[in-house]
């Protein structure tokens, strides 16, 4: 087979990182990214990009831990290099606080992040409504910067980006050998996945440059994440809500909850409101599939459904998806050489 042609559908963090991993694993492949949206209009652009994993009930923990570890290691190296500001990657320390003791004192990722330990009594005094807490250092991706940086690296290796709405993966069968489905919440329509549903999240981005530490309520609803230029305040987790319009009542509620965690936020300036739909699923769909119609076949690799944990596991799942693409190509080359006999 001449240079295998691979189309990656979706240009959020999953699509772009998967495309990059494919170029790394398969230098002879011709890779294109197709998406109706690119940064700054993807779901990823709304995410705070904190490396604190979401637990998928349907995926074995050791697999999730491997994905997180690969992602953390990859970004850790970037954060420590001259590329860090452009890639938007930086270390941040802080606290996860609980009003009630958490189900597990040490989560599966506690030895991947840095310096994980329970908070001291003195530290907890800053959070009078919370009884228990964990202190650690992790990484944050400034999402729009990171996506732009990924796009730049992709273009440098010759990857083409096409603004195009793909209505049906089969439409691509004549142009591409393998299609990688990184459509995120778009997979609901694209492949009719009934297990995929949105969890709507509204966040505020404010100017509060004196906030240097993150604070997260262990219930997952309230968080203060300092980014490079702005601090992300969150949030909401609204299951099955599809609206992308900011809700003013929610804005006030988020602001109040965050101010109760970090009173100095009362003086924050320049509030911007964003909404994203977490592409949620009991487990990430990371698998091969073969579409066939009328004797013709299309190799598909799915890599979507990362829900609240996209940034935390993106590199790990991208590498696995690239490996699956390699398997597809090997299978195609095997069958095409058989066809020649």
């Amino acid at each position, binding site marked *: 087979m001449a240079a295998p042609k691979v189309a990656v559908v979706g240009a959020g963090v999953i699509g772009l990182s998967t495309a990059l991993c494919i170029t790394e694993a398969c230098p002879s492949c011709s890779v294109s990214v197709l998406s109706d949206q690119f940064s700054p209009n993807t779901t990823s652009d709304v995410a705070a990009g904190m490396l604190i994993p979401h637990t998928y009930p349907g995926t074995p923990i050791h697999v999730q831990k491997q994905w997180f570890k690969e992602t953390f290691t990859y970004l850790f190296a970037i954060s420590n*290099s*001259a590329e*860090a*500001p452009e890639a938007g990657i*930086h270390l941040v320390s802080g606290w996860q606080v609980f009003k009630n003791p958490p189900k597990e004192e040490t989560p599966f990722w506690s030895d991947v992040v840095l*310096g994980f330990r329970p908070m*001291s009594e003195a*530290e907890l005094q800053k959070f009078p409504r919370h009884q228990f807490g964990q202190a650690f250092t992790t990484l944050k991706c400034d999402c729009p910067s990171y996506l732009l940086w990924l796009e730049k690296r992709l273009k440098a290796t010759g990857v083409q980006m096409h603004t195009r709405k793909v209505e049906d993966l089969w439409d691509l069968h004549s142009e591409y050998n393998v299609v990688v489905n990184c459509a995120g919440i778009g997979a609901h329509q694209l492949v009719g996945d009934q297990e995929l549903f949105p969890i709507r999240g509204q966040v505020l981005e404010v100017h509060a440059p*004196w906030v240097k530490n993150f604070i997260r309520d262990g219930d997952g609803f309230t968080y203060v994440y300092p980014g490079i230029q702005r601090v992300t305040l969150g949030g909401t987790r609204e299951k099955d809500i599809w609206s992308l319009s900011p809700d003013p009542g929610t804005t006030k509620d988020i602001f109040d909850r965050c101010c109760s965690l970090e009173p100095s936020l009362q003086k924050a300036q320049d509030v911007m409101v964003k909404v994203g739909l977490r592409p949620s699923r009991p487990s990430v769909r990371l698998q091969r599939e073969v579409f066939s119609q009328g004797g013709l076949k299309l190799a598909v690799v799915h890599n979507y459904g990362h829900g609240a944990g996209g940034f935390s596991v993106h590199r790990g799942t991208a590498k696995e998806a690239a490996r699956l693409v390699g398997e597809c190509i090997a299978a195609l080359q095997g069958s095409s050489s058989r066809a020649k006999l």
Partner: protein
Amino acid sequence: MRVAIVGAGVIGLSTALCLHQQYHSLVPSLELEVYADRYSPHTTSDGAAGFWQPYLSDHGNLQETLWNKETFDYLLGHLGSPAAKEMGLFLISGYNLFTQPVPDPPWKNIVLGFRNLTPKELELFPGYSYGWFNTALMLEGRSYLPWLTNKLTQRGVKFFHKKVESFQEVFAQGVDVLINCTGIRAGELQPDPELQPGRGQIIKVLAPWVKHFIITHDIKSGIYNSPYVIPGSEFTVLGGIYQHGNWSEENSAQDHQTVWENCCRLLPALQKAKIVGEWSGLRPARPRVRLERETFHHGQLQAEVIHNYGHGGFGITIHWGCAMAAARLFGSILQEKKLPGPPQPRL
């Protein structure tokens, strides 16, 4: 009773505020006046990054450790208040790095969450094999000094733009107590060979992705002569110069190179940071802080001086503890003068 505070850096202004808070209701005749030839943003305190951290060892000077603790606890108490932002006060976490194991510092239980660095964390800093992580405070002089000035103005404290040439000239005007917070130039009012400049030079950069302080230590070259990075609310301070005995307030190109190269080696991401300023200042270094009374006799009258200077590179770190100690010394002066108590009924 007229009290003159000479010096309007962090020591002068905080001592003035502490005095007023404690005594204005007890001493109705109390009049506070601040005299200085340099005000914010032209004081040594304005150039400092504003990072709370004492030196690594207190050389058995427990008193200074207590003053440091008092300051930290006082500031921590203000963190949740609406004034915090205006004061330039916020929490910050970060790293102290060493090339060999060192004993824990006397302030390990003052700061929050003090612990040793893990091997993985040390991977971030090649060349350093040991270190600490903790959460401490920033108190930016550029905000704190104006905040103190506002508080003092609200309380009716008067400010004078004037270079005081001698204690006598102030007493001759009828001032009863002089608080000497003149920092590095205290020697001009009264020779003090123990007071020497610890010259520092810093580069200000825009590097908002840096969220941690990083202080390296080279036991051989001494405090502040090893690179440090301190992120502030508007810009990040790069430093690592301590020149004992150097009085120059001019920026040196060689020191600029030293700071820039060392900090970029420490944090490669800084190579992309935009330089927005440079500053040199003289840390008022002394083997110990001079915080004591001195009585002067002029003519029939007795005048008192409270010295409060020589805080080296830890002025912000220790300021409130010293202000409280100065206030106690003032209290003993009042005691001796047997000032009238509440008004007596007329007979």
